[in-house]
């Protein structure tokens, strides 16, 4: 197709192209424009299903939930407009407050730990190990599995009162707890599960590390900078955009955590509401208590919380993210 456009353009303008340089430039540009239009069409074609999905599967329900959040919709029967009642109820709902607390603890503990872990391993892998692709895949694997039902079930077994962890501890003469069935440890176990899925940010860190020019390190080494200094004064500043990117993504992900808590606690958020994540409580209200209006309002609160955090993140990024230009 491009060849066709080329020959057509050539035929109409004749052979004396050398005489008029400006036209030549325009002629040369014409096929590129067509090419781009074609590319755009192809892109739109490929994006089409996604847009369709966005409209039908995401945007429709999104707007519907906004409407339902002002009603007493109960999933099965009729619903009535109740105004801001659902939102008012949130102020006095103590379980909502404890769900918020659980979720915030989870986000603020697990995300920094996970990112630190990811960065540390990315730096080890960046030293040019032999078999790097293999290691990269191996460490990435948990990220693919982490949110899955199967792994959550596995986790419940491994951390159970008679699970693998306690068997290892027993070997050293330590009497372990039921890690997922004790309110003091259950949330911690889920945080460990999240930290374990450091693979996705790690791969991104690795790509970022690769882009830091080696000459900076060489210059610093010549000046006698210690590895610690090089890390804090070259690696970290050069990596801030990547750290920022990972931070935003992982915070959003962590706020939306559901599967792990649902499976590990058997859908209850227990023991004693210690793993009652926001999304889990939302699910319980909506599908357990048929309180879909309230659940919709909760969903919008979560959206606002996540939106707020992301906005603050972007605003704050002006003060610490370094784009190197």
């Amino acid at each position, binding site marked *: 197709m491009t060849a066709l456009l080329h020959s057509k353009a050539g035929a109409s303008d004749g052979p004396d192209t050398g005489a008029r340089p400006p036209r030549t430039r325009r002629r040369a540009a014409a096929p590129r424009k067509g090419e781009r239009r074609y590319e755009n069409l192809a892109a739109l074609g*490929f*994006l*089409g*299903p*996604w847009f369709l999905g966005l409209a039908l599967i995401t945007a429709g329900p999104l707007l519907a939930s906004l409407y339902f959040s002002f009603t007493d919709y*109960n*999933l099965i029967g009729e619903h009535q407009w109740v105004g801001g009642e659902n939102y008012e109820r949130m102020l006095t709902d103590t379980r909502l407050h404890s769900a918020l607390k659980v979720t915030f603890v989870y986000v603020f503990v697990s995300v920094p730990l996970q990112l630190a872990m990811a960065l540390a391993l990315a730096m080890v892998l960046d030293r040019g190990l032999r078999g790097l692709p293999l290691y990269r895949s191996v460490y990435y694997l948990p990220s693919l599995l982490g949110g899955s039902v199967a792994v959550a079930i596995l986790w419940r077994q491994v951390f159970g009162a008679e699970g693998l962890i306690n068997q290892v501890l027993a070997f050293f003469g330590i009497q372990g707890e039921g890690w997922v069935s004790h309110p003091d440890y259950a949330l911690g176990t889920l945080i460990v599960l999240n930290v374990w899925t450091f693979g996705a940010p790690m791969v991104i860190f690795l790509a970022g590390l690769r882009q830091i020019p080696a000459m900076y390190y060489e210059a610093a080494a010549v000046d006698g900078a210690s590895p610690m200094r090089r890390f804090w004064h070259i690696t970290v500043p050069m990596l801030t955009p*990547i750290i920022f990117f990972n931070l935003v993504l992982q915070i959003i992900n962590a706020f939306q955590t559901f599967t792990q808590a649902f499976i590990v*606690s058997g859908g209850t958020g227990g023991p004693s509401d210690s793993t009652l994540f926001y999304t889990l409580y939302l699910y319980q209200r909506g*599908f357990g208590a048929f309180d879909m209006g309230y659940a919709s309002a909760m969903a919008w609160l979560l959206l606002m919380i996540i939106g707020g955090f992301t906005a603050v993140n972007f605003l704050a990024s002006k003060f610490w993210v370094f784009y190197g230009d």
Partner: protein
Amino acid sequence: MNPFSGSAPARRRRRPLLATTAAVAALVMAATACGSSESDGDVVELRFSWWGADDRHSTMQEAIDVFEEQNPGIKVSPDYTDWGSYWDRLATSTAANDAPDIFMQEERYLREYGQRGALADLSQYGDQLDLSALDPLVAETGVLDGQTFGIPTGVNAYAIMADPQAFEEAGVEMPDDTSWTWDDYVEIANEISEATDGELAGVQSMAYNESGFQIFARQRGENLYAEDGTLAFSKETMTSWFEITERLLEGGGQPSASESVEIEAGGPDQSVLSTNQGAMAHFWTNQLGGISESSGRDIELLRYPGETEHERTGMYLKPAMFYAVSANSEHPEEAAKFVDFMLNSEDAAELTLSDLGLPSNVDMREHILGDLPPADERSAAFLEEITEDIVDGNPPPPIGAGEVVEITKRTSDDLGFGDLTPEEAAEQFVNDVSEATGSS
């Protein structure tokens, strides 16, 4: 380097990803398009949904096979899960207008679904569904406001299951269940744990099911719910109920709070009886067969403690489950026909035996009584034995009663882990249940 600004290298990297996403999306759409139902004219397809443990799934499947053999024009696809996730699933599919044609219902949820128009009135399918042989004791339990929303599958009672072999190992005598008190119950349980150095739990925590408390309250002339759906017990009664659990935790008679959480999450198949790690547990009589099988032992049924301790007996008969048909079913007549098969055919009765409760169809009950396996026979005999001492039934639970299942679990955990005293636990339970059932 700014991943958000869409600088040139970033865009180049992203493009293959987009293409992949588009391709995947296209595939998914194509796949779902293929997957949409193609019902051909001759065969009616029904979906039947139930909850239960493994042995129920296989007997139900056998019953479906027999039904399909006898009714070549109807195909029934099974759709089963455990009790825990059953209600979430049913709620979701009902909301999506995709409820199974036939599904199991339970007392606590019947009103919720019935009054909101999700269930078909089965009295209008008299041609397909014969209800004449129903035990009058439970026949009307699925009728709300004159509409038959559910057909009781059978009768059962909440009771204590005991493993005689565990008692023997502990060197403790089995109690006389016609006269034992709540103090006896606590002492026996603590004794068993002590005698076996904690190898065997005296009793599995009873605090996770409000049905036990209902018996406890009835013994004191109270109940869980009144006729009008409000709470019918005093806070003092609930406090003494939780105090029993506290005494068992202190005395070691029941597994620790965190062990209890795990045991509870495992369902009946992981109960202390099923795993031979305890002597007693609280269950419905129809679960005796399944639990006996998984334990490999002859588990026995005992009456609740305290039946002669207070002003009256507290045990009661309950419709085990209900068959219900979705109001949105495209083939309600065929669905009714299937319910009729499950309810009135000897084939189905011989398969399900007393797993869905002692059959509510009295003819079928008579039919299977002769050749029940030992466990089912014991539960049938037990029901017959206690029936004469039962004072009355319970009013149907109010809307929101399904939520009480979760509230009970939560309160028990708070109590077990020492976050609440029995008195505070009672207070929390009353508040949460009042709110859930709208009687505050």
